[in-house]
């Protein structure tokens, strides 16, 4: 059928069409404000971050320790009520060097997001955070890193209470 049709619908516009005033458009923005109940699992996670601790939870059935903590194990479908303080160090599971911000601006120094498998949690259980105090060229999967915290009085109970993770050994 694609062989038979000569012209497919769809008219392409360029940015120039807008700046030249050829296209009428309407601009609107949503004032969407949400206040999400954190509940027991994440609420405990945030409270622990404020205290300078990364919290996980333990499933007595499959015996995994997971992070962030939750009140039920999604694989066993059983309640988890044992919250376990973990170390604030870990291993880089994966990372990227990002030269574009979330709103598509170019930056010279890359942001370094990473998934960090947290010490004390089961293997392959980690959190996403940033890496800092490291030369981007030297980041490697498998690197050992440690959290750099905001000073206690500045912590709010947020994932940003950890500023970033930095390498444990000098590189």
């Amino acid at each position, binding site marked *: 059928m694609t062989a038979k049709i000569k012209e497919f619908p769809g008219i392409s516009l360029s940015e120039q069409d807008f700046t030249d005033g050829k296209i009428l458009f309407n601009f609107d923005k949503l004032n969407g404000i949400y206040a999400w109940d954190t509940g027991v699992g994440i609420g405990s996670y945030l409270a622990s971050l404020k205290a300078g601790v990364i919290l996980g939870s333990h499933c007595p059935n499959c015996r995994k320790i997971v992070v962030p903590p939750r009140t039920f194990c999604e694989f*066993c479908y059983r309640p988890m009520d044992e919250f376990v303080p973990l170390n604030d160090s870990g291993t880089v599971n994966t990372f990227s060097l990002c030269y574009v911000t979330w709103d598509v601006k170019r930056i010279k120094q890359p942001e370094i997001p990473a998934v960090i498998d947290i010490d004390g949690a089961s293997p392959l259980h980690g959190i996403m955070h940033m890496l800092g105090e490291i030369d981007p060229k030297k980041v490697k999967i498998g690197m050992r890193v440690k959290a750099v915290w905001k000073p206690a009085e500045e912590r709010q109970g947020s994932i940003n209470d950890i500023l970033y993770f930095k390498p444990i050994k000098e590189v």
Partner: protein
Amino acid sequence: MHDRVAIVGVGCIGFRPSTPEHSYKEMVYEAAMRAYTDAGVDPRRDVESFVTVAEDFHEGTSIFDEYTPDQIGGALKPVHTITGDGLHGIATAYMLIRTGQFDIVAIEGHSKASNIKTLPEVTAYAQDPILNRPLKLNSHFIAGLEMNRYLFETDSTREQCAAVVIKNRFNALSNSLAPYGANLTLEDVLSGPVISWPLGSREIAVHADGAIVMVLASEEKALSLSDKPIWILGTGWNNDSPALENRDWAHSKYTEEAARMAYRQAGINNPLEAIDIAEVDDTYAYKELQALEALGFCREGEAGTLTLEGFTSPDSGLPVNVSGGSLGMGNLLEANGLARALEIVLQLRGEAGPRQIENVNLGLAQSWRGVPTTSGAVLILAN
């Protein structure tokens, strides 16, 4: 055979104006645990597919379906989301089982309306961005327009609409799940502030938080799991025009068409005769009257009179919204239809406690997706 499908388990939590003690995941987990316990199934082992109903902007998260599987036991299982009302979700689970590929399917819907701090603005964001939103009107205006035209064409009155509020909120006093039970007078209802004339504030269902999960099973499984399976006799759903500029304002055409589809499946020619109890949309009081007519329970213009005369009260000809409806239980966003179906299931099982209606064998649940939509669904259940 997979022709016949039954509801074998129900669970819920709520319904309250706010639920700060748990996150949506924890809230849904509670409801799901209750449903699975009621059904006697282990979701990890027995439930083969899961359907959830949700809308991104009600959660404040894009691609919200990402966050649906864990709390219902669906992690790494066939799970999908329908952006629809709970009755759309039940219809989906029904279709899945009838394909013959799945025996047990769960459906989930919830509301955390309390977490949406700018809900009127979010709701207005569903209006047409070019033609309607620039008018900067609170979406209740659409209900006001519709109510006005409905009253005009059917010769119904504001008093008749108020009678719906009085009945439903009084019914809610017998429902321990309902947060908005009240014993109101006509004066109470009509003296409330006008929101979008002729719609007054006391005719609008206030939101509530909560979650509902149901477990559906094919006939063979249903008979072994439950001694009170509630059979789905028919489902129907339909859309009218989304545009305000060309829709039928007085009639709920989508309810008529959805009902036609469901009645055909259930073999029902005379709804008033066949159906013992109904739970219909009353997120705005006039919608109950409009729905009763669209469902064919009475002729156009009669629903108001019947309601005023008490015909839809619990002890009368056709009990409607014995649960309290949304006016009594709260507007639960996508979970409204599930709340309507929940009451029918409880009534048909004889588990409605102080609200139990005698001799109910066939019930109907109907829902609408709210302004500015013209989307609704109907479900017919029997014990």
